[in-house]
């Protein structure tokens, strides 16, 4: 079998199962203070706490073995669509650990941290130039948080203008689920706009949603560009003009910014605001729940409402400006995820202006290479070049061989690759969404494509191989339905027999 693990790894025991009473894993210094009875201090005895007790070597092997069954970008190709799982250069980690950054305290007087302000302002300035917006706010802690912050600014803008009747947010049916969720969270009614046969926003439906009295109720359109179909919206300027003509605002979901960095700028397309995922596009690590950074870009007219503090230049100095009476307030503690900004700063400066476009060019090239190599076995959902990710459909395997996109993905685990995104966007049947990113070599892409082609042949010749996959991983096919219905994430000590 090409690549990957070839036999199932035994399921590891939990640290609790390895525990034996009285075993100690660390050499505690001699106690030079009065001893305190644990049960008196905590109200629980050692036995009641039920913590695992193991020796140092058992502990070390336990976590080393666990780390070896983990899968990440540093162990293999991770083509999870809409997630931009690019490699994050180690130099970002080195700078984030500089004592001058890592040991800062958020309550330190401003006068003592000009270097930190330099980083924040530097990231803001570079992102302004890359996106074409007038202002950048780095506070939001995740992509959806950035979306929501943009909508809060739009809401404040309309309230200040006496246009509170604008209660509707338009969201294309190809959007990330967070878009309608952010709009609903801000108190807006969400109206879905369909996608046309070419994968673009349906202009006839949009015109209808903006017509007459309905148009006066529209606060904003939330548009992902390139769309989640991996396609650049060719009517982008026209769409922005249509929404502006009825007085609405246009938000760009920047989850797919990797396709545009250094090549084209959403601020120039006509958007009023956008969010960026620094943890995707600008290489501050992500996955496992963060910490992320959902920076937002704004045009001048939304700037009075932006969150405080605003880091800006005053004469020769950088200051944190809190004196902004129209501000929506804070959306995060202090300055957001500061060390993420250090990583983004490092990444941006490492590329520099002259190489910035390499990010988008190579990510688009890699996605189109995968698309072209797989098109005979997995047809693209739309017959035109894609941007940074390709959307393929496994519909024919479902119809002819009872093999679903999910089965193909599970089989890919046996070949040693992380599966792509499945069943998103929802409007493509049996959808596989592959985003290779710019950091992969042609050799890796070829190994992946060879595996996919081989799996598609297996789907025809021996579909049960796919139905039963994965067969080489620590756990086999999981019962996802049972997991959702009876969520059980806590280990319980088995009761002794006969009690």
């Amino acid at each position: 079998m090409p690549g990957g693990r070839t036999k199932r790894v035994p399921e590891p025991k939990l640290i609790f199962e390895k525990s034996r009473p009285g075993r100690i894993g660390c050499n505690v210094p001699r106690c030079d203070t009065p001893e305190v009875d644990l049960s008196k201090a905590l109200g629980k005895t050692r036995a009641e706490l039920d913590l695992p007790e193991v020796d140092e070597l058992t502990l070390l092997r336990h976590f080393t073995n666990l780390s070896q069954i983990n899968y990440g970008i540093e162990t293999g190709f991770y083509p999870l669509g809409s997630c931009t799982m690019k490699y994050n250069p180690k130099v970002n980690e080195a700078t984030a650990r500089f004592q001058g950054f890592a040991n800062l305290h958020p309550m330190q007087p401003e006068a003592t941290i000009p270097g930190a302000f330099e980083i924040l302002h530097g990231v803001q300035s570079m992102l302004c130039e890359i996106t074409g917006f007038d202002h950048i706010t780095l506070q939001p802690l995740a992509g959806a948080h950035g979306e929501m912050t943009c909508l809060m600014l739009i809401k404040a803008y309309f309230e200040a203008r006496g246009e509170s009747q604008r209660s509707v947010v338009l969201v294309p049916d190809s959007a990330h689920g967070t878009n309608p969720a952010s709009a609903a969270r801000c108190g807006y009614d969400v109206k879905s706009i369909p996608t046309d046969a070419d994968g673009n926003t349906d202009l006839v439906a949009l015109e209808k949603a903006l017509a007459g009295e309905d148009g006066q109720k529209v606060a904003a359109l939330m548009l992902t560009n390139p769309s989640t179909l991996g396609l650049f919206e060719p009517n982008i300027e026209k769409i922005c003009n249509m929404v502006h003509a009825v007085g609405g605002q246009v938000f760009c979901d920047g989850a797919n910014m990797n396709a545009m960095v250094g090549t084209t700028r959403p601020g120039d397309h006509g958007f009023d605001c956008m969010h960026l995922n620094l943890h995707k596009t600008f290489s501050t690590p992500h996955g496992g729940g963060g910490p992320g950074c959902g920076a937002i870009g704004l045009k001048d007219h939304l700037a009075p409402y932006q969150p405080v503090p605003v880091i800006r230049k005053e004469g020769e100095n950088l200051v944190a400006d809190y004196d902004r009476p129209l501000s929506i307030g804070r959306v995060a503690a202090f300055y957001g995820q500061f060390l993420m900004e250090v990583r983004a700063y490092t990444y941006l400066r490492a590329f520099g202006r002259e190489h910035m476009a390499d990010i988008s060019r190579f990510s688009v090239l890699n996605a189109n290479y995968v698309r072209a190599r797989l098109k005979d076995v997995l047809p693209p959902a739309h017959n035109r070049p894609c941007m940074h990710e390709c959307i393929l459909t496994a519909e024919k395997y479902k119809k002819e061989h009872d093999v679903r996109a999910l089965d193909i993905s599970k089989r890919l685990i046996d070949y040693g690759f992380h599966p792509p995104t499945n069943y998103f966007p929802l409007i493509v049947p049996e959808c596989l969404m592959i985003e290779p990113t710019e950091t992969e070599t042609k050799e890796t892409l070829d190994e992946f494509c060879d595996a996919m082609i081989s799996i598609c042949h297996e789907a025809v010749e021996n579909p049960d191989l796919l139905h039963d996959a994965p067969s080489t991983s620590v756990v086999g096919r999981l019962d996802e339905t049972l997991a959702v219905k009876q969520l059980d994430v806590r280990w319980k000590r088995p009761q002794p027999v006969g009690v």
Partner: protein
Amino acid sequence: MANVPADLKYTKSHEWVRVDGNLATIGITDHAQSELGDIVFVDLPAVGAEISQGNSFGTVESVKTAADVYAPISGKVVAANAGLGSASELMNSDPYGDGYMVTIEMSDASQLDGLLDAAAYSALL
């Protein structure tokens, strides 16, 4: 192939309607449940609620996604399938029977004329 019983009416958005006098029972089609995958949660309107044609009256959540279910016709809910609360999988195993969602008292039976018959619905799949 998806099961499309001949005696029901259908919508383009994959709901079915079974008419019995002035009552209409509504659910999602076999094709819809197959596309959604295993259904894990169903949100239904309360008995007595008014539902109106074309608007969402409930939500179905599967391992893949959450989807709105749209009212094929307007009316007042006289029964909501309480059994789905603990056994949402009935929508997968028996979409036209025990997996139904609601029964309504129709407010305008002429709306039925605008729905699809089995042949027209099958042609969409």
